[in-house]
């Protein structure tokens, strides 16, 4: 199906009606109406459709109880619904089995789990972990903690001026000392989508497992962990229109099986005695304590929601927004877009000459436009492009061309303000 046909079928105004918060205005005061909210910060966290909110409310009102224990009716009902979402997530990623899906608190915790469990067990002094320059701090700091403990070595794949990952450099960095590769599937600053399949294939030629941070990638396109041949793949619920407090770790079962627990507690044990405790098989082994049950139900509803809209249709809509917004922003004098890789996701980071991003953020906010300013938890990348902090507009399935126009208009106001 062509983009044009998909876009015709995609009724963004109807989609917007599913998101109650998008109807509000901001900065209203004393009889003065506010400005309509223009939410361009979905890369930080996406808004939630009514379907997600209602699924969580309904669950709490009708079916809530703790899971995996208790023989009573509600516990069984809640457990069934909870585990059905695990199956749904497995299908969403095209994982071979729902045994490969571990619920965590966030992408961050999922990466920390792999670093602490797999990393501590299988990496030793002098072993190398390959990251990329465009990692979020969540995929840098866990490895640095491991470095401090085990004296491993961290290698960093650079990118070019457009923000394209330097695959030649990656090939050169791969060696007999490489024991793990951990790379983003889509940069939260540049929007660059990395060639995950090629990254994994090259690592596998040396028997090295690969972790992908899919926090942005799962939102903007279809991900097939078997096609990529990812060993670990993580994402977070709240960027995918689901609730906060919930992340997902996909792991190949053979790897998960070899890994010791990350945290200890209830729900992850077979039996406990002071002489010795035995642990359950994955994924339970990695889910100590009561999980975020209601949030898992919410994620299930979020997945249903994006699948009903169609992930290809969403991607086509977002691609159109990206093209349009890039074109409009490029016409502003003194505006420099950071990250121009072909096939990138709908994320536009930029600097405006002569105006600090913090000042840009404050002024456009008065026009109702919500953007992120700062270094976006990716300080090494800001250094790489020598831009310091930037402004980031990130688009989601509910954004419109008119909202891109509103951003451009508010930036014109910034320029007038500062005479830039």
């Amino acid at each position: 199906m062509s983009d044009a046909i998909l876009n015709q079928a995609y009724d963004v105004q109807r989609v917007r009606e599913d998101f109650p918060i998008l109807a509000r205005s901001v900065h209203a005061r004393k009889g003065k109406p506010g400005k309509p909210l223009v939410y361009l910060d979905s890369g930080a966290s996406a808004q939630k459709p009514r379907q997600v909110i209602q699924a969580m409310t309904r669950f709490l009102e009708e079916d809530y109880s703790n899971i995996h224990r208790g023989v009573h009716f509600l516990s069984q009902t809640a457990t069934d619904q909870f585990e059905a979402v695990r199956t749904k997530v497995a299908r969403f990623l095209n994982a071979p089995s729902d045994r490969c899906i571990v619920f965590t608190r966030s992408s961050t915790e999922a990466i920390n789990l792999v670093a602490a469990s797999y990393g501590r067990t299988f990496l030793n002094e002098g072993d190398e972990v390959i990251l990329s320059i465009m990692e979020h701090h969540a995929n840098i700091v866990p490895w640095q903690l491991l470095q401090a403990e085990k004296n491993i070595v961290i290698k960093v794949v650079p990118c070019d001026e457009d923000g394209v990952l330097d695959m030649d450099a990656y090939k050169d960095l791969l060696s007999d000392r490489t024991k793990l590769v951990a790379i983003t599937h889509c940069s939260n600053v540049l929007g660059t989508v990395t060639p995950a399949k090629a990254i994994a294939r090259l690592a596998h030629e040396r028997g090295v497992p690969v972790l992908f941070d899919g926090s942005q990638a799962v939102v903007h396109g279809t991900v097939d962990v078997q096609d990529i041949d990812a060993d670990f793949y993580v994402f977070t619920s709240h960027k995918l229109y689901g609730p906060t407090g919930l992340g997902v770790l996909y792991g190949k079962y053979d790897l998960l099986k070899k890994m010791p627990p990350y945290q200890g507690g209830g729900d992850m044990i077979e039996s406990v005695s002071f002489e010795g405790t035995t642990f359950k098989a994955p994924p339970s082994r990695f889910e100590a304590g009561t999980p975020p049950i209601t949030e898992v139900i919410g994620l299930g509803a979020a997945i249903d929601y994006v699948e009903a809209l169609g992930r290809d249709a969403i991607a086509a809509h977002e691609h159109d927004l990206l093209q349009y917004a890039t074109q409009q922003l490029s016409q502003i004098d003194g505006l420099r877009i950071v990250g121009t890789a072909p096939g990138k996701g709908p994320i536009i980071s930029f600097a405006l000459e002569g105006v600090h991003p913090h000042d840009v953020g404050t002024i456009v906010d008065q026009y109702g436009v919500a953007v992120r300013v700062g270094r976006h938890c990716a300080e090494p990348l800001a250094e790489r492009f020598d831009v310091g902090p930037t402004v980031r507009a990130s688009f989601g399935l509910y954004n419109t061309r008119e909202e891109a126009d509103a951003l451009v208009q508010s930036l014109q106001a910034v320029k007038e303000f500062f005479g830039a």
Partner: protein
Amino acid sequence: MMDDLRELYQEVILDHGKNPRNFRHPDDANREAKGENPMCGDRFMVYLTLKDGVVDDVAFQGRGCAISTASASMMTELVRGKSAAEAEKLFHAFHELCTQDEPDIPEGVDDETMEKLMVMSGVRQFPVRVKCATLAWHAMNAALHGEAAASSDQF
């Protein structure tokens, strides 16, 4: 709402932001402290030349937004020539102005100085920007006390 913006970005602030005063590193500085806002990456060094308990010279270097740069620039103009005790008093007065709806201003700050301090107080309407306005002041206060750094994490 645009009135609030004009209140925050007054001409004098835009001017100090674009053409900061005392943007240098004095040779004879005997105190210095770094002010850093990890959230946005703003970073200033504030240099003091203390002689016989008096701020003989004060200057700064670094990079930040219009608010933090203007505030640093205006701080240097206000603090120079003051005793260490007076400089600290100004820090507290400014901090009150930026953060409190009913600021508790220490006694002994003259009207002209208050007027200049008030210029930045529009920031109170923009809570996330208060740390920008007070960053260099915190660094100055840290330098007065012989400390090496002030981080907005602790403000």
